[in-house]
């Protein structure tokens, strides 16, 4: 795993009277322990990857509390796991990245929500929306509405987030309905503090097992005719129960003065940003002391009509602050106002943009427009907005447009050479359709590779090539990671392709981990002391599934990868052709290799450190090598040649010696400027003897071997 939480995990054992300091996701974990959960699970993905990482690294604490932990192979498995709460009084929590994870989980979620739950069921989703998001921009809210799952969107300060975790289980149990908590990216990573409570061990758990299974009860099955009764039950019993609970426990927060002509209804998650703009307008301060009536919805579904009605009554207008499209809350509020026959004017997406993140500037503009409409003076806010515009104009005047800096493959990444080979193949054979996938390899869509024609979801690349392979002259290439392979690609892609005898090429990046989400273990990860990998064999799996053409390549051998790709493209053999591209995630590898090497060197053992080097005298500054690599450690520097002006290529000291530079210069016949440098540390007698003989011969033929600072140091 990429991040170690060993220090933070200690804070999970804090008890009443102690103050917890940490990030949002860790606070949620503590909230789960304080709520007496019996089981937890999920599938990793930013921004909630750390939730699973923390759980995995705190297995001792979990097992003390008897909590069962499952690292699910995808979100559907995680959602299905909540079935334990249908029949049993077990509290459970699962987590994943949304919207994509919720899409994958949708089938199980529908069935879970229909049957309803006995024990509290909580789904913590990372709402990957706005700045830093890596997926399509949609709202989880839609799932809450269609499946009758309650949606919690907590005001992002830690005491409230933790409190809402605890209340979510109670709400779930009071209304027999699963609850989703959506946490935006920054809320997941917000560092703050709260007063801890003692952890609670569940009555039934891995250490206190339930003796007998639930008795047969047809109404717990999502199967007709029970489903018809369940649909009615959702509306007639569960919904009112939830609304009653929300009111009685004050889950939504009423802030600011009573009365007043205007009011604001906001999603809890947006409150802090809204408060900053209200403070600009002179209507609040840094302590959230509002002077405009505000209803903060910590629960955005269901709304409580009586609460909305009471808030709006007597006001000229309310503004709904709701991020993303469609405007579900605004529609619901409108309906409530209409049914209550209130004349209160409703604003929302008319003053705020219909789509996109509600940044400070966007919120400021909408809020200023709202205040102005109702005779309030937002001059402080207007001044700020005017200053922003003036600044933007001034900055544009003096500054040139700046090149973007999208993420790239890490230094030495084993996936980069495969895309170098694909680029070389494109140069030789012409372009081919490339189905991209989710994972680090999606970074090949950025320069210098700029490859990929579609992305259809995690593990979906091969499936998305199905009709392309049937209608295109050249075979399309689908790229998938081992993460995507086990998540989904094996069945939706490979099985379907074999079944339909599609003629395509699948490249599986076998780097050994789910790397993009933080280097978590997969079923095919190497089994080891610390990891959860089981060493499942992908090649055997593929052959068992009827794939005849399977090749393994060492990614760093660019020429070999190139040849294998060419063979896959040109072979007469029909059917699916799979290339398993082997190369361990360099992040994981370096974390292992570096300390081991440092230790060996310190203890006087012989150790060879390898890195690459560009000969600045033979480099002519064309940068073909960079266009085929893009490695962060392969960069440029001023040309030392007094006659040339274009910068020369240069390998900096971040180089991990993966060898791609040299391989690419060979495979593409670029230039003779690359050299491999092996630094033999603590050389042995044989090394020194061989070097002395070689040096003597070189001197004999008029050469001058390397200066020998080592001669002094040698014993």
């Amino acid at each position, binding site marked *: 795993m990429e991040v170690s939480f060993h220090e933070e995990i200690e804070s999970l054992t804090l008890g009443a009277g102690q103050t917890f300091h940490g990030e949002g996701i860790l606070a949620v974990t503590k909230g789960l322990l304080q709520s007496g959960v019996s089981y937890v699970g999920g599938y990793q993905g930013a921004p909630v990857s750390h939730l699973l990482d923390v759980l995995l690294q705190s297995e001792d604490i979990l097992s003390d509390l008897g909590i069962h932990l499952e690292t699910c192979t995808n979100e559907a498995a995680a959602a299905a796991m909540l079935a334990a709460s249908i029949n049993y009084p077990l509290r459970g929590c699962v987590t994943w990245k949304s919207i994509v994870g919720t899409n994958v989980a949708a089938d199980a979620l529908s069935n879970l929500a229909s049957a309803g739950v006995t024990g509290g069921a909580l789904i913590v989703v990372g709402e990957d929306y706005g700045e830093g998001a890596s997926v399509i921009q949609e709202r989880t809210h839609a799932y809450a509405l269609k499946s009758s799952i309650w949606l919690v969107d907590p005001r992002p300060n830690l005491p409230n987030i933790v409190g809402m975790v605890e209340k979510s289980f109670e709400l779930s149990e009071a209304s027999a309905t699963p609850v989703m908590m959506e946490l935006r990216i920054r809320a997941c990573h917000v560092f703050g503090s709260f007063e801890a409570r003692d952890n609670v061990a569940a009555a039934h758990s891995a250490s206190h097992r339930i003796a007998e299974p639930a008795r047969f009860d047809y109404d717990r099955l999502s199967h007709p005719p029970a489903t018809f009764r369940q649909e009615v039950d959702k509306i007639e019993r569960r919904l009112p129960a939830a609304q009653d609970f929300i009111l009685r426990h004050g889950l939504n927060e009423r802030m600011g003065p009573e009365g007043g002509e205007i009011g604001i209804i906001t999603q809890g998650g947006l409150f802090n940003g809204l408060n900053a703009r209200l403070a600009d307008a002179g209507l609040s301060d840094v302590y959230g002391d509002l002077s405009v009536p505000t209803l903060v919805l910590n629960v955005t579904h269901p709304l409580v009509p009586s609460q909305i009605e009471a808030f709006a009554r007597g006001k000229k207008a309310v503004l709904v602050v709701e991020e993303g499209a469609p405007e579900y809350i605004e529609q619901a509020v409108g309906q409530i106002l209409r049914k209550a026959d209130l004349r209160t004017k409703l604003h929302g997406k008319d003053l705020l943009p219909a789509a996109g993140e509600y940044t400070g500037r966007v919120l400021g503009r909408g809020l200023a427009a709202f205040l102005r409409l109702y005779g309030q003076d937002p001059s402080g806010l207007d001044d700020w907005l005017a200053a922003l515009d003036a600044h933007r104009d001034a900055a544009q005047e003096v500054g040139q447009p700046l090149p973007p800096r999208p993420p790239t493959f890490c230094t030495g990444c084993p996936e980069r050479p495969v895309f170098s080979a694909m680029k070389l193949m494109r140069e030789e054979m012409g372009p081919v359709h490339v189905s991209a996938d989710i994972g680090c390899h999606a970074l090949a869509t950025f*320069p210098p590779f700029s490859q990929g024609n579609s992305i259809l979801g995690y593990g979906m690349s091969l499936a998305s090539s199905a009709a392309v392979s049937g209608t295109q002259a050249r075979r399309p290439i689908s790229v998938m990671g081992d993460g995507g392979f086990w998540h989904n690609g094996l069945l939706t892609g490979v099985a379907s392709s074999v079944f339909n005898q599609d003629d395509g090429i699948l490249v599986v990046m076998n780097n050994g981990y789910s790397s993009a989400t933080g280097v978590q273990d997969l079923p095919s990860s190497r089994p080891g002391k610390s990891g959860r990998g089981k060493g499942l064999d992908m090649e055997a799996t593929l052959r068992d599934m009827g794939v005849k053409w399977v090749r393994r390549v060492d990614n760093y051998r660019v020429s070999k990868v190139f040849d294998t790709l060419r063979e896959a493209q040109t072979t007469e053999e029909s059917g699916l052709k799979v290339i398993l591209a082997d190369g361990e995630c360099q992040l994981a590898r370096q974390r292992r290799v570096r300390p081991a090497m440092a230790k060996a060197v310190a203890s006087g053992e012989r150790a060879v450190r390898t890195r690459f080097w560009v000969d600045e005298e033979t480099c002519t500054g064309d940068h073909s090598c960079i266009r085929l690599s893009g490695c962060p450690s392969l960069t440029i520097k001023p040309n030392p040649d007094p006659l040339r002006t274009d910068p020369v290529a240069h390998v900096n000291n971040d180089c991990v010696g993966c060898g791609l530079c040299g391989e690419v210069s060979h495979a593409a016949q670029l230039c003779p400027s690359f050299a491999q440098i092996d630094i033999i540390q603590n050389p042995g007698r044989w090394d020194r003897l061989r070097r002395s003989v070689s040096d003597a011969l070189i001197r004999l033929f008029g050469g001058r071997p390397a200066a020998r600072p080592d001669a002094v140091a040698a014993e």
Partner: protein
Amino acid sequence: MLRDEPTRLLIAAMGGEGGGVLAGWITQAALAEGLWVQRTSVPGVAQRTGATTYYLEFLPRRDGAAQPVMALNPSPGRVDVLVATELLEAARMVQAGYVTPERTCLIGATHRVFTVDEKSAMADGRLEDAALIAQCRGFARRAVLDDLGALAAAQGCHLNAVLMGAIVGAGVLPIGAESCRAAIRSGARAVEVNLRGFEAGLAHFGAPDAAAPPVAAREAAPADRAADPAATGFLPPEAGELAAEGVRRLTDYQDAGYAETYLAHLRALAAHPAADAAVLAAVARHLAIRMSYEDTFRVAQLKLRESRLDKVRGEARARPGDLVDVTEYLKPGPEEIFGMFPPRLGGWFMQLCERRGWQGKSIPMKLRTTRFSGFIRLRALGALRRWRPRSLRHAQEMAWVAQWLDRIARALERDPKAAIEIAECARLVRGYGATLKRGLRNWDLIDARLIEPGLTGDYASTDFADAVLQARLAALKDPDGTALDDMIAAFEAAAGIDAAPRWDAAVA
């Protein structure tokens, strides 16, 4: 309502740089100072070397007041301290409005980590440092900019420790040095090194209102080289200096006689009444480069340069006692191998290769020049360079040079500005293998479609220089030559030239 306002800090960094660790230290130090502190970030895949930010707010605790509501996102115009780990990222923050003259103290490292766009450009795609620095200074209330990366390297620590010291030294946060030291000490790794970096950063900016020392110029001035003023005295100063460098280079490349040929070409050009200082400088520069074309003999010679191994040792940070091996990646193809042969024999082999489709074949070699076996092979090749003037490659290169000089001389008659642009086109022809072929193809295309028609007056002479300049820039836009093809087609359409026959001639 209370007028308290938090202090706001935004850190602009790149994933994997240790910005998260820096933000963590500051958080911990702020807690130790008894402040309210909130920190957020946007991790995820953005951390993989892409641009990212960390945002912190601080507020003193006030008795009886509630926990403050702190923003999760930075707001433009509302940032008190901006810390940037790299110059472009600092400028990006300026453009995004996070650095404003009323409020923001900008603490930035001025080194550059080039973006892929800048690195992969076919010529020089770098942004100008001076312009970026001017932006940072122009918009900050106070700008503390310096080469902190070099300071960190000198201390052997990461940049983040130095930045932490710089932040405290600049006195812009309500956090004292002792709390920071404690925060660093509580870290798991490299505590001593980080503390050293912190103290260095602190000392560097600690003096009140210390004027930041000027940033070193990116390109060091070329070292003075002994030039023989008599040999190049017929040239204006700039061209003379370049020519002196050219003579030195070509003497080393081949011999004094070869350098004399170079001077003879320059003398012939200088005799032309329209040859001004600019065209002479351009030709002096590019003729020297083209005459020292990178053939197999040259590569072998450069690979055995005596200064080379010391440079390698230094760059690779080899410690005393370490042995260093250098393995060269070479892959000569038919051009490199048969180019060494006499023209007729070499030409015959090349034709054979073409007939058999062997142009793409080559011999991958990994030569260890630090071992005798590798050394002696390069030594032998290098020694063979006396043979060079009789080689196929030399004949080809000299024919190219003659053609290029001919175009320049003829252009001087018509438009001296165009002559400079033609001279500059020599930049296109360089390198090895595919790069060299691409350059020659581009030159041939520009020559046939723009230079020749320009010389013979097929289009207005007022367009001549600009057409060649635009073509050269287009040729450097993309490696596929698409931009150049488009540019030429558009130019011919505008000038009403029917170029079909010449097009065939150019690619033949």
